[in-house]
């Protein structure tokens, strides 16, 4: 996955330098019983280790820092794990334009050679998987070589700056067939397939045309530049081969050893497929509302949430990625007094002699999608954006990406959920003023056993990127100093549907967190204003596990105790349960540390937005929580909370 996603920014405009990567994994829980594994399915622990190794190996070797990500666990990913890699590219303004080839320009393939690997890779990726998939489709898997890609990237950026090519695109899904076909849409092209450099002999022209071998890019090169270009690539031992010529006949013509093996009108190729129409239906599911009393002591529940697979520390994975390479690290994925607290978003300084930074964050929560994909999507947008705010960014220069992973769209209920999710993205992005600039979808993520078709949970990853003017204004989530005030910013509702508190109690509920992006934008703008003035010492966004988890994480990451009062939390509706206030996952909320002397100015900066001082940072080594009646509902040493959070994935 990673090799391909790195070539996307490389093939954007006239090419950009990859400066950061992200990775999000969705697997079945690592403690899934071996005896229950369906035929042909590897144990999730093995998949996690293998995928981790593959992604880290590739990213580390290319020298691209992996700075942000997430790992989610759900049994429905058992037969169909999801790996979502992202790469950010940096380009000079002049390169930020779509290239245009001219008839007579040469088609040049650069980078790796072509082999039989990855034939029908994309089709495989979208097929329903079964127990026989491994045997039947082994050749669908591309075999990557990161050093080939690294060599290619190094030279490509030099060729770009010398203006040696007019257009570039990556050879991704469909290999040459889609890269050449897309690039030549407005002109036409002829390709001599026997000229494509091969890893080994014996490939048919069809295999050459369809192979998805990695590390290849396609260039349109003016004839007068081709000699210099080929010599440049050769000087660093990288293949660059002329395989054809762009024409002006609006046709795709393929030859193999002078025999015509393909001839098609571009018009038909690009517009010949009639738009398909599918049926979509969606119905709000009803889950049983859990029925239990709010526990008198919430310590055990908090520890359970902290130790749940989705919330627990991912340090084991994070440290196996190089997040420092390229030398631009500003806010690392792990922060705090012991360098091991969960940072909200990462910041890098991609241009080493500039003060500007790039912030990368993500939002994902498939559990909400089990209730309503619309609110899942809106929540994911909100989560990604509030992480940007939490580290000192703002919404002025922010952009979003969406990755949809869904089941079989031919089934109306799956497609209905997808439509809901797209609507959620649309409304949230519009009101937040955050444009979607890229994305991807992967459908048919179902695994067929003899008995049933297991569909993955509707999974939407929202990534957010923002430009930061001055990285010196970054704020981290770890608590800084005893004596400071703890504020909550944003309104708390009774929104426990899909929450992690319910999850550890085996329930789902129905009241999924909603988003009011118009109000959210005002709040985020005000908070980032306060942070820009230097009034915030620590800020943590509230997501899985609500106030309870966020306060615990701030406390143990900073090694500073916290006392907070649930009856001070601003509520959007009457709530008479301590557990609901502590663990509700309402959106657009932050916990903020403010020095006593800055409290007035901080409150002034927030103006009409909802906020309240709910506690303080203390010299004790505990998180202490007082309930609605002022009773103590939680008093737990930070070390115990941290241990609960670190233990599960300390492999």
């Amino acid at each position: 996955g990673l090799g391909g996603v790195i070539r996307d920014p490389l093939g954007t405009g006239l090419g950009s330098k990859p400066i950061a990567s992200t990775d999000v994994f969705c697997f079945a829980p690592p403690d899934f019983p071996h005896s229950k594994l369906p035929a042909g399915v590897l144990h999730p622990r093995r998949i996690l280790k293998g995928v981790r190794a593959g992604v880290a190996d590739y990213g580390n070797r290319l020298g691209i820092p992996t700075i942000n990500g997430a790992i989610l666990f759900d049994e429905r990913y058992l037969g169909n794990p999801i790996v979502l890699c992202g790469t950010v590219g940096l380009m000079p303004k002049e390169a930020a334009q779509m290239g245009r080839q001219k008839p007579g320009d040469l088609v040049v393939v650069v980078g790796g050679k072509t082999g039989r690997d990855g034939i029908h890779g994309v089709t495989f990726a979208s097929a329903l998987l079964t127990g026989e998939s491994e045997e039947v489709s082994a050749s669908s898997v591309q075999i990557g070589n990161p050093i080939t890609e690294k060599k290619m990237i190094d030279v490509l950026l030099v060729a770009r700056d010398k203006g040696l090519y007019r257009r570039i695109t990556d050879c991704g899904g469909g290999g040459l067939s889609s890269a050449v076909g897309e690039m030549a849409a407005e002109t036409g092209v002829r390709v001599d397939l026997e000229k494509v450099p091969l890893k080994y002999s014996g490939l048919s022209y069809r295999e050459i045309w369809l192979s998805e071998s990695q590390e290849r890019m396609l260039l349109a090169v003016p004839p007068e530049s081709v000699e210099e270009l080929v010599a440049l690539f050769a000087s660093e031992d990288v293949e660059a081969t002329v395989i054809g010529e762009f024409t002006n006949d609006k046709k795709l013509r393929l030859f193999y050893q002078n025999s015509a093996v393909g001839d098609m009108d571009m018009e038909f190729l690009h517009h010949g497929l009639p738009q398909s129409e599918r049926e979509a239906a969606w119905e709000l599911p009803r889950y049983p509302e859990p029925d239990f009393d709010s526990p008198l002591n919430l310590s055990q529940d908090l520890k359970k949430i902290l130790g749940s697979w989705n919330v627990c520390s991912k340090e084991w994975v994070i440290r196996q990625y190089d997040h420092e390479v390229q030398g631009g690290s500003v806010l690392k994925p792990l922060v705090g007094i012991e360098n091991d607290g969960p940072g909200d978003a990462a910041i890098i300084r991609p241009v080493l002699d500039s003060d500007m930074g790039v912030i990368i964050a993500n939002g994902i929560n498939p559990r909400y999608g089990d209730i309503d994909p619309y609110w899942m999507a809106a929540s994911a947008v909100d989560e990604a954006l509030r992480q940007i705010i939490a580290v000192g960014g703002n919404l002025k220069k922010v952009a979003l990406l969406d990755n949809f992973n869904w089941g079989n769209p031919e089934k109306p209920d799956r497609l209905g959920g997808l439509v809901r999710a797209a609507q959620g993205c649309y409304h949230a992005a519009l009101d937040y003023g955050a444009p979607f600039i890229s994305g991807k979808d992967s459908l048919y993520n179902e695994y067929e056993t003899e008995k049933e078709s297991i569909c993955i949970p509707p999974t939407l990853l929202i990534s957010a990127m923002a430009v930061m003017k001055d990285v010196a204004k970054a704020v981290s989530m770890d608590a800084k100093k005893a004596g400071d005030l703890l504020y909550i910013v944003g309104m708390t509702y009774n929104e426990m549907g899909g929450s992690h508190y319910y999850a550890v109690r085996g329930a789902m509920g129905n009241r999924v967190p909603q988003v009011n992006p118009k109000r959210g934008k005002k709040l985020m703008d005000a908070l980032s204003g306060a942070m820009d003035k230097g009034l915030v010492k620590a800020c943590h966004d509230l997501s899985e596990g609500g106030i309870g988890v966020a306060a615990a994480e701030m406390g143990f990451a900073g090694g500073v105790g916290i006392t907070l009062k649930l009856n001070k939390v601003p509520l959007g509706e009457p709530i008479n349960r301590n557990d609901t206030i502590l663990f509700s996952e309402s959106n657009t909320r932050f916990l903020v540390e403010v020095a006593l002397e800055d409290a007035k100015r901080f409150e002034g900066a927030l103006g009409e937005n909802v906020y309240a001082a709910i506690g303080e940072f203390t010299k004790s080594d505990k998180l202490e929580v007082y309930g609605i009646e002022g009773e103590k509902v939680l008093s737990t040493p930070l070390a115990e909370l941290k241990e609960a959070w670190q233990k599960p994935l300390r492999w």
Partner: protein
Amino acid sequence: MAKVRTLILRAPGTNCDVETAFAFEQAGATVSSAHVNELVRKDKRIADYQIVVIPGGFTYGDDISAGKILANELKLKLGEDIQKFVGGGGLILGICNGFQVLVKAGFLPQSPDASQKLTLANNDSSRFECRWVYLSVDKQSPCVFTKGIDALYLPIAHGEGKVMAEPKALGGLNVVLRYADKEGNISADYPYNPNGSVDSIAGISDDSGRIFALMPHPERFLRWTQHPRWVREAN
């Protein structure tokens, strides 16, 4: 004063060259970057520089073992140029993969027959790790790069950084850097010693102190904002 001419040596898979060049520029050097092919073709000559740096990365994919192929290339294709360069008082710095290269080329530690006396094996954790480490500088060390420095705090990012040597070679090593705990005491305990290096060795030099190699990445801590706790500790 004339600026020090520094050469950053690149090979396929080198990936810390840009920030290493930046670091030397910040320190006041004039920096050129050269692909190893350019040196082999004699388009550029080592003799024209005063410092040669082999930066971090995964040269040639670390196939066979980390740094091995570039090491052979330097030894067999550029060995004479390098001997002359060192003999003429030139400085060589190897960072991370550069350390692995210098060791496997037999340039460090020096030996009469230029054979390899030391290696960098898989970390004890048997995985790649990226974390910050405390380093103690050996006061006896002749290393010219660490003059006037007692302690360092730098990131490591490697999977093969465990120094192992023949017992005989170990005694004669010029150890420059050792992994230490927060208080600066040399430590053999994980994660302070992140890879299980013998004698907690993180960096060594030759007898002259002019060839220096280390696993941590000094080019990744040029600014306060790179420190993992810059947001909470005073400058």
